[in-house]
């Protein structure tokens, strides 16, 4: 029987808990969690809280943001490598995406350590990262 993983993930966010999946076979992490390990395909996964620690490597912003997130534009959308291993992409607070020049200068300062947090974006609790310590 397949677990209600997506619901547990989003219910977890409402309690400020950010869940990933650790594989019982290869021990590697999948984030966000799905029904099998993204590394080895095993179904022996356990939902666990991630550390929330990560490193942002690149970011930018689009002049044609998705309809759902247009009201936040321009926002920094970045590639974050989690301490647990997986890469994830989401909004990164604390990075300046106001102009091409600030994006260029901002990227010159990367990689930077970031911390995950739960934030309500367009009516849903999601995971974003912040450069604030």
């Amino acid at each position: 029987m397949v677990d209600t993983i997506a619901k547990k993930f989003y219910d977890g966010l409402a309690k400020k808990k950010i869940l990933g999946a650790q594989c019982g076979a290869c021990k590697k992490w999948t984030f966000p969690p799905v029904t099998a390990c993204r590394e080895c395909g095993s179904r022996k996964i356990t939902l666990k809280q991630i550390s929330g620690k990560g490193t942002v490597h690149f970011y930018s912003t689009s002049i044609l943001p998705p309809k759902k997130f247009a009201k936040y534009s321009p926002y920094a959308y970045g590639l974050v490598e989690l301490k647990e291993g997986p890469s994830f992409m989401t909004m990164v607070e604390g990075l300046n995406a106001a102009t091409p020049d600030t994006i260029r200068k901002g990227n010159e300062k990367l990689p930077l350590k970031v911390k995950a947090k739960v934030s309500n974006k367009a009516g849903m609790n999601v995971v974003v990262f912040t450069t604030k310590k």
Partner: protein
Amino acid sequence: MVSKAKASIVGVGCTKFGNVMKTPGIKDKTFHELIAEAAFEAMDDANMSGKDIDAFYLGSMLSHTSHAYSHHTQMCDWLGMQLKPSLHFATACSTLNTGLGMAAMSVASGKFKTVLVVGAETLSSYPDDNPVKRKAVDPQDLWYWTDFGVDQIYAYHHCYDIATAYGAIPTLSYAKKYGLNLDKMDEVMYNIYKAVSKHASLDPKAFVKDDIKQIAKKKKFKDPFDYWRSKNNPYFAYPTRLLSALNTVDGASAYIVTRAENAKKYNKKPVDIIGFHWSASNYPWYGKDATEWAIDKTAFSGAYKMAGVKGKDLDYLSVHDCMQIYQLITSETAGYFKKGESWKAMMEGRTMFNGDKPMNTSGGRHGKGHAFAASPGAETYELVKQMRGQAGRKQIKKPIKLAAQHNHGYGMHAAVTVFKGR
């Protein structure tokens, strides 16, 4: 050793790419008529009619604008193929590349002798509750519907931004990896666009009609690079400019695949399908080195293994360039260029039709235009025409004996097919 083919392309067809509300040649044509036009050209090219073909596979992605998803059943009449086996299939923007492998397997299995594959997309408008009255699509709606192709449980809702994911970050990553500052990277992207726009200007079916020199001149710029850096060409997602990104268009494409041993009965210059492979990956498609895409490596290595070839052996390469940064990244993954070397080749114009390493000679997803599922068929059309020596003013001078075509399908599928001329 190069593999022996079991399946060959004996007919190709392609409509003009543009806007069915405006573009001469396709104006006022319905989705069904676009499909018929591409299919009939392929049938004529193979000296066949619908009754000579055993089955047809119809590829398209966006039902929001086609207002159709069981269209293969509707299309049997329009194609003259009543009661023939048919199906609808999709791997998004790689669809008609995937169809090459499907058709090759179908004829190689012995079930069918000949298969028609046709793809179509109408992205600029949709029927406004009236089949011959269309309404223009709002670009944000188009991308909202398109983004149904990316991970809908997590990625989309986490502030997903396609232009940054697909264009900006791979470009930043390529520049960082190979020590190019972002001014130099901009110059590299300009040089890629020179080839994109030149090829499109020489293709009578392409959406873009002018090369960069003509575009700049019309806007009163003496130096095309000044135009490139002007407000006419803003950053779509820094450092990716608008002219480095796709143009969404309407259009259809088709090809006919038959058993290799029968191919010369239908066409004097068949093109053999000698290898193919596909790979799928959920988001994100890369890690901190955004130039390394596992799906592309998997698709190329599988197709090359089946074909018995290597990337350095290719005479022509077509890569998916909805963001032109993939002309760099994917040509290196393909082994067509060594890692970190493709940008130099683009600066020197070597990938032009008259260069020694030709690529994407119909103008790619910006120049020819991006008609999601149908575009890979337009790229196969170009490749077959080049291999036959029928590519007109942009004919590559050296004989094209071995070629490969790569496509991405949102989000994300990679399809690679390897072709051999006779």
